[in-house]
């Protein structure tokens, strides 16, 4: 049974590639477990996070105007969002580097990523099995 809307995990996707965020949203939506919001302008990420109150944020690193590191720091600066897990989802690291853990103090996943791995990552940070 799918969780009700208020029990769904709220996932915020910040990535300038709209084709990618649409695809990930569709994939996560199809599981019925997640409520996904997309942001394609990095400069709008903090406002969207304040409005949406995500349980977890996936953020690209290389974006015009503002990079992922700045977005993550700006979200961290908002007291109500300071504990929200932020995961970099990026094409600048290779698969074999993903196991090493962190970029700038934040965990990361390499693109391309499978739906299973994405879900595992979400549930790991939510502290429950997928």
């Amino acid at each position, binding site marked *: 049974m799918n969780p009700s809307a208020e029990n769904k995990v709220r996932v915020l996707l910040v990535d*300038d*590639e*709209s*084709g*990618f965020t*649409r*695809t*990930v949203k*569709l*994939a996560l*939506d*199809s599981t019925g477990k997640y409520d996904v919001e997309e942001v*394609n302008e990095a400069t709008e990420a903090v406002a969207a996070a304040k409005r949406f109150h995500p349980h977890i944020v996936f953020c690209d690193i*290389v*974006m*015009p105007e503002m990079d992922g590191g700045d977005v993550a720091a700006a979200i961290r600066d908002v007291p109500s969002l300071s504990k929200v897990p932020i995961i970099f989802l990026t*094409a*600048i690291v*290779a698969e074999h580097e993903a196991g090493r853990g962190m970029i700038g103090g934040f965990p990361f996943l*390499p*693109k*391309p*990523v*499978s*739906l299973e791995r994405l879900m595992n990552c979400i549930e790991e940070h939510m502290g429950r099995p997928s």
Partner: protein
Amino acid sequence: MNPTTGESPSPSRSNEELLEAYRELEQSYHDIQTMQAQLIESEKLHSVGRLAAGVAHELKNPLAVLRMGIEVLQHSNASEEAKKSLLDDMLTAADRADFVVRELLDYSAPRKLSLAQHNIQDVLDRTFTLASAQAGASGVRIVDARTPGLPPLHLDANRVQHALLNLLVNAIQATQSGGEVVVRTSSKTLTGLGGNVGDSLMDRFRVGDTLVMVEIEDRGQGIASDKMSRIFEPFFTTKPTGKGTGLGLTVCKTIIEMHGGALALRNRVEGGVVATVVFRV
């Protein structure tokens, strides 16, 4: 003569000292050569690394769309409308990956030119024809301010046309609807006096060289000063996401320099950018 002892220096000792000094100089020269070779190798590896990272980034993004899209199509109960939209995104991603690879091949293509004598005006005529659809769709007017009667050049017409088209399309994209892009041509012989001096674009040519210049001038916002120095780096782009691979200008510069020419971009005081291409006659 030694001013203290009043003795003349021993010629044999002096020769030994000179020989020793020569050996030291020779060793230093070899050390510098070795160090220079190491630096060149290191810079080459660094360049290859940067290029590889750029290629990886530009290809992994469309691959990420294709990977996740296939999973959705395999397993999800998404609506037909959602699946159609997804297939459109996947098609765009595949096209983008293809475009990146083609641009990269242009950049790394064998350095052979098919040279023949051409008039740059003819090459520009064909370039204008190819760009006219994009200019029309963008509401941008191409102002033809070319000077007739320029000397012919030894060119690979297709490659030069590719470079000029790229520069012209960049200018059109940088210009708002209702604006104009001006294309000028001119010719001059370098005298080593006046305006040539201190012009970095002209540094690679010699006094007496006759040059043909093409200037493509847009009325856009210009390029931020912190980005101008990186404008020819592979995969560096000032265009919005998905609008440029960051290889276009790199390819243009490579093509022009293969012809012994030069390409430079500068911001205009009045706003916008001028791309200047210079060929030696």
